[in-house]
Structures are given as C-alpha cells and as structure tokens.
C-alpha cells in the first residue's frame, strides 16, 4: 500500500546538461582515493601502513570512537600515500590499484535466520556500515542507537542529479536483501519514497512502506519526506540511506563481497556528452570526464549535485557517497550593472526585473558567480516559499548563528541536515552560507548535548 505526499513549496532548478540515459564503462582508474572529509565527524585510526598491500573489502581504518566500525578499501592494491593536513590530520588515502583485483569474501549471515545483532556486526566489520547515516546530526549512524525508522528516497528532484529509477534498474534482488537486513535493525518501519508515476524497482519490494511523492525540489530530499511522514523528535533517531548505497549493502549481504562499483551521472553544461558511467568509489574523475569531453578550460567540477556537492578538480576522485559529478562554468567575472539590468538568463525566485517566472520549464546555464555580495539577513518570507518543512528556516538559521542551543533544539534542528537548506541558500538574496551555518549548528549541538 502506498501513501501519497504532495509537496507544493519548492523550486525546480532546470539546468542544461542533464545526463543522457545511456551507460558507458569508464576507463579503469590507476589510483583510487578515499577522502576523509566524506565521513563527517569520524576520527580515523589506520589499520595498515603506507606501502602495504590491501585487498578490496579489507579494512583500511576504523572509527576511533567505535573500534568495530571499519572502513574498507574499494579496490585491491598498495596504499601509496596518506595525505595529511594541519596537525597531521588524515585528509586522503590513495591506493594504487592492482591489475587483477582481489576481493575479500566475507562469510555472509543467513538473512532469514540471523538476528539484528549479527547483521549489525557483519555490516560494521565488512565496511557496509558507513553507508547508513542518521539524523539528528546528519552523520554516520551510531550503531549503539536503535532507530525508530529508516528512510530511503528514490525520487530525484535535485538539479542534474543521477536519476534513481535509471540507476536502480534490475537491482531488485540486492535491494530486497538489503531491506531484509536493515529491517532487523529497527522495530519501526522502512519508509521508501518514489516518484508518483515511477517504475521504480521499489514497487515490488516487500517489507517497506512505500510513499509516492510529487512536487518540485526539495520533494526528493529525504529530509522533506521525513518531515512529512514521521518527523524526528528530540531524543529520537532515524537512519537514512541512499538507494544506490542500498544496492551495495544488498550485494555485501548476498555475496559477501564489497563491490565498490556504481553508476555515476556525469552532467553539467560544460560536459560535451553528458551521460552515465560505471565506475568505482574513489576512482579518478578524469577517467570518465574526458571520455565525455569538456567545452571550456576553466570550470567548476563538483562531487555531487550543484546544490549540495563538494568542490573538486580534474585531479579529484569520486566521493564515497556520490553518484553524480557535475561540471559548470566558473563565474569569476564582473558583470556591468549586473544588479539593475533585467535578467533573462538566470533563475530567480522573485520577479524583481528577473524573468525566470515567465518560463518555468526553460533550462538555464548557471555559473558559480554569487550574483551579489554577502549581506545581513534582510528580506523575510522568501525562504518559506521554497521550504516545505514545518520549521521556521530564518529563525533556525539565526538561532544557529548566535549559538542559542535551547532555541536550536526547540525550532527543530534535530530534524534537518545541511542539504535541507540548500534551496534556501540558493535563493538567499543576502548570499548567506546556509548549509555551513546549519552544519556548524549541528556540530555544536552534538558537542554540547551528545
């Protein structure tokens, strides 16, 4: 049985350069890298030394606060470099891949008979755990806490992001296995959201509560769906996992093999032939970037979508959680009288001599220019129009900025992740860094209240 969720508030950002729905195989990467920034709040303790060999699926490091939580290597090869930053903080681990890949084959638990504890320790040991994230605090799930529910969004509304239905095609078996495994970790429900008329493989999966979602972005963000289905209260925990990572968990539970392979959308106006590629977590982005070709010399390469992704460059590596790589033009140029000219080629949520409201379906080629300078919050009531959560966005942001813990709690900081504020950040006329403010607020709340 499915329940419908209709989102009215929001804004679709239509950009040129959507990935064509064909899959090519990316050239095998020589070096693979894990970027430790992907694992927010994790302090790594290395299990192998620089220069040692490692198999695919063998643990590289563990979480200092939870020794059982292993992070495994996506490929087999030699750990060639540990890049460190200030105070010897580990930034990146680089692995030179073998020509012939060797996998660790773990002994899989029997999904029908195994209990939750067995599944949990299996996932922790074999590197599947980091795919599970939790709210509050938007970080890798704490295995000691039982979630009240698990949320999965298989509905894509983010600009140029990989289409969930397309990349999940023919993965029913893995998805079902992962759902069976995760189902044992929570006494609550597993909520899955799909597009209203989508032919998603989730239509046939058992053991889930299916929701059909429609409406503009951020309808596809899992945070929006949590807020509409079963919001997080103080003290409660929910888990979220992206559907593609669910497939990897499923394979890990079925075959015992950590298969880092995933389908990645390469998109953006800079890309000549935007399409999908099969590659692996941590692969060099250049292995498929140049196969599609680029139009410009200088561009912004993003691990993820344009609203929530992280900045990288042509020497960068595919992020642990990303299944989209976007390339858009850099906008570091001046525009003569840019603040008072009528604007036809940019998106705006107002009509202040901006004309994107005339053609809601038109596709735009946006660059990274901020279109104005950072200012204090001035306008009110604008964010609410693109923010469907039952939360006062401006007031929550201000509470985070002044570090008022009580108010942060009361206004619902537990329920949100930085990505929920990506759209308010996009339309912000004061050009405030909303996602950063929320991230810092979450970190502070976690530090003070645990």
């Amino acid at each position: 049985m499915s329940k419908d969720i209709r989102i009215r508030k929001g804004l679709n950002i239509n950009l040129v350069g959507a990935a064509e729905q064909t899959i090519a195989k990316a050239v095998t990467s020589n070096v693979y890298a894990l970027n430790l920034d992907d694992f927010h709040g994790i302090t790594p303790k290395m299990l192998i030394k620089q220069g040692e060999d490692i198999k695919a699926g063998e643990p590289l490091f563990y979480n200092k606060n939870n020794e059982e939580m292993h992070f495994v290597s996506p490929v087999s090869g030699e750990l060639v470099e540990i890049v460190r930053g200030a105070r010897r903080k580990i930034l990146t681990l680089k692995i030179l891949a073998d020509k012939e890949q060797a996998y660790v084959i773990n002994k899989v638990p029997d999904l029908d008979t195994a209990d939750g504890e067995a599944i949990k320790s299996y996932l922790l040991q074999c590197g599947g755990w980091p795919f599970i994230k939790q709210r509050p605090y938007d970080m890798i799930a704490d295995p000691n806490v039982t979630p009240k529910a698990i949320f999965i969004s298989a509905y894509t509304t983010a600009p140029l992001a990989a289409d969930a239905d397309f990349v999940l095609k023919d993965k029913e078996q893995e998805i079902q296995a992962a759902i069976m495994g995760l189902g044992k970790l929570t006494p609550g429900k597993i909520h899955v959201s799909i597009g209203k008329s989508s032919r998603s493989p989730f239509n046939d999966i058992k053991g889930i509560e299916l929701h059909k979602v429609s409406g503009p972005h951020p309808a596809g963000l899992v945070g929006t769906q949590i807020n509409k289905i079963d919001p997080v209260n103080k003290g409660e925990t929910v888990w979220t996992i992206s559907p593609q990572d669910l497939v990897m968990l499923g394979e890990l539970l079925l075959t015992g093999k950590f298969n880092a392979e995933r389908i990645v959308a390469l998109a953006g106006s800079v890309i000549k032939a935007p399409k999908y590629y099969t590659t692996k977590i941590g692969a060099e982005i250049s292995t498929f970037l140049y196969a599609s070709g680029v139009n410009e010399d200088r561009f912004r390469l993003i691990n993820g979508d344009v609203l929530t992704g992280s900045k990288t460059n042509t020497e960068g590596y595919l992020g642990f959680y990303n299944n989209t790589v976007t390339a858009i033009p850099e906008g570091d140029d001046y525009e003569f009288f840019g603040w008072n000219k009528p604007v036809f080629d940019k998106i705006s949520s107002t009509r202040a001599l901006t004309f994107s409201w005339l053609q809601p379906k038109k596709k735009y080629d946006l660059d990274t220019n901020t279109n104005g300078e950072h200012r204090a919050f001035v306008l009110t009531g604008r964010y609410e129009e693109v923010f469907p959560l039952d939360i006062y966005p401006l007031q929550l942001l201000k509470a985070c900025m002044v570090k008022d813990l009580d108010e942060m709690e009361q206004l619902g900081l537990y329920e949100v992740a930085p990505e929920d504020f990506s759209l308010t950040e996009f339309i912000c006329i004061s050009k405030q860094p909303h996602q950063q403010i929320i991230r810092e607020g979450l970190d502070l709340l976690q530090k003070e209240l645990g």
Partner: protein
Amino acid sequence: MKDKLHQLKLKYQGKKMAPAFNALHTFLYTPNETTHSGSHVRAADDLKRTMNTVILALVPCLLFGMFNTGYQHFSAINGFPENFSLMEHFLTWDNLWVGLVTVLPLVIVSYGVGLAIEFLFAVNKGHEVEEGYLVTGMLVPLIVPVDTPLWMLAIAVAFGVVIGKEVFGGTGMNILNPALTIRAFLFFAYPTWMSGDKVWVHEAVERAGTADAISGETVLGSLAQGSDYSYSLADMFYGFIPGSIGETSTLLILLGGLFLVFTKIASWRIMVSAVVGALVMGLIFNGVVNAGWLPEYSKFYTLMSFPYWQHLLVGGLAFGIVFMATDPVTGSQTNKGKWYYGFFIGFLSVMIRVFNPGYPEGVFLAILLMNVFAPTIDHYVLKGNIKKRLKRFKTATIYPKASDEVDTLKTETA
C-alpha cells in the same frame, strides 16, 4: 575599464578604504565573487536588486510629488483652477521647476548625509557598505513637508542613521525603521515647524505675515480643527492635495504597492491586513458617531465622523502601509506574525490620527510602535511551532542505547 578597476580592487584589498572602494565598484559591476561553500549556484537577485526594485516603485511618487509641489504652490497664490485639466494645470514646466528646486535638495541632502555616515561606519568597522540606506534615503524626502529646512533634515538624517540603525549593527539589525526614526525626530525636535498649515506649501512660511501670505492645510489638518476642506474624493485619490511630498497620490502608491507585491519584494500580508485594520478602526469610530455617543461639540467629532474608508486616501496612511510597514527588517518576520503586525498598524494609525491632539497624523507613530512589538509577535508565533513540536515529543519513540549506563542515567534525570 573592467580590468583597471580589478587592479585597483586588488590594490585596495586589506586596506582601510577597501569598503568604500568596493561599494562604488560593485555599483558599476557585479563582483567576480564565486561560491565557496554549500550551493555552487545562486539565484540572480541580491540586496542591491531588491533595494533597486523598491526605489523603482517609489519613483512615480517622487515625480508626482514634484509636480504637486508646484501645483499647490501656484494654487495657493492664484487659487485653484476652475476647470482642472491634467496637462494644463498639473503637468506643467512651471510646476516641475518649483518641484525640482524644492524637492531635489531634500533628496540630495538625505542621500548625501546618510550615505556619508554609512561609508564612515563601514570604513571604520571594516565591513562592506550595505544597501539598506538606498531605500531609506529615498523614503525620507517623500515623507517630510516640502519646506523642511535642509539643516533640519541633515541633523535628523544623522540622528536616524546613527541612533536608529548603526548603533544596532547596521542594515538588517535595526529595531526601528530608520526613515521613520528620522521623521519622528523631525516631528519631536521641531514641532512648531512640522505641524500647522504653513509647511505643506512651498514658500508659505516665508510669506507668512506679509501681504502675499498663503497657506495650505492638509485634509486631516482641516478635519482636526473641525473645519471643512475643499477637495473632492477624486482629488484625494489622485493626490492633488497638500501633504508630505510623496504621500498624496493614493493611486500611484497603489500602483507601487501592486508592483512590490508582484515582484515578491514586499509582503502582501502586511499590506492587506493593515488596510483591514484601518477600515475596522474607521468603522468603529463611525459607529460611535452614528450611535450618537459623541456630542457634536467634541473636538474629535469631525475626525471620527470622517467616512471610514476615506482614511486610506488622506495623509500618509497608504504610503506608510505600502512602503514603510513592509520593511522586512523592522517588521514581523513570520508569515503569521505579519497578519497581526499589519492589522495593528492600520488600527493604531487611525486611532492615533483621531486622538492625537497636536498633530492629526499617526501612521509613523503606529509603525514605530509596532516595530517595537514585532519581535514579541514573532516570539508568540514561534511559540506555537515549538509547542507543536513539544506535543509530538510526548509520543516520541526513543529506544535505549545498547550500552552506556551514563546515558540512560542522563535521560532519567532529564
């Protein structure tokens, strides 16, 4: 030009004068700033564009105000034309010329003094010059009487910008609307100048006591004295009446308001609820008069019996509702709160207007008062959201942690 300015910008970087240079530079060119964190793309509008939109909405009022200044001036001398024609009697070069020489200096002083202080504070504090004053600087000349001496205006602007805004931290942080703070300062510091029947018409003050003496009483002024006024409803709606420079034409204010609502810059909630509030208060007063509770000799009788909806046509009510009450910084910031905030502005405006013995106008006082109460209104609106969350919290499903006795102890004591 672009490259030269870029080189200059680099030269000024980190120097004390950088904010001043950047403020001028960003007027010519939108900066080359790119996104650093979070969303990699941003929408087209910035604060400059927003402020510019408000100014565009104000320009018709300013132009009309200039013509009207001349029209009132000549009408006071020669008498009102009998067969009024827009082109012949109103949109004339003579009228415009009088308007230009009286109004433009006010605009220049308002912007000059205000922006100078803004630049000073920005350079001194090392932050960028924020655009808030662009609108304030335009509002100020529109809400003062034509013959306000420039030195008074300069002092008032300095007071308003420093005490009304900069001491709170500048644009976005102020509690009171800066333009109205300036207006209130003028009113309380120079009360004899700012009221009466002399300041509303150009040169009326200078001619007082001579053979050429002229005067022009506002509609509200006449009503407050219990005397009649000679303007038709159409005059009031189109704005051919004496008053502060920009406030007279209800038609153009209405158009400006529609433009601001359409562009989504100003809140329609505040405008609608303020109009409703004014009508309700007007109806109450009319009701009191109709019920015969008020003797005719009462000094409030004429103002209270003034038809309720005509309050919107005279004085600064319409202008205040559209351009001042909707200031997002000093107004209520929640959508629900805006309904209450607007309603009380309209309600109190008409109430103060009727009961204020010295000066028959209440819009700026009502808005300033509600500016002070706006955070309180928001506080209660947020309380509602917090209560909802607390109610949900009672049915929260919290599973005990697998380990950690300390944590269970914590939840027990909490």
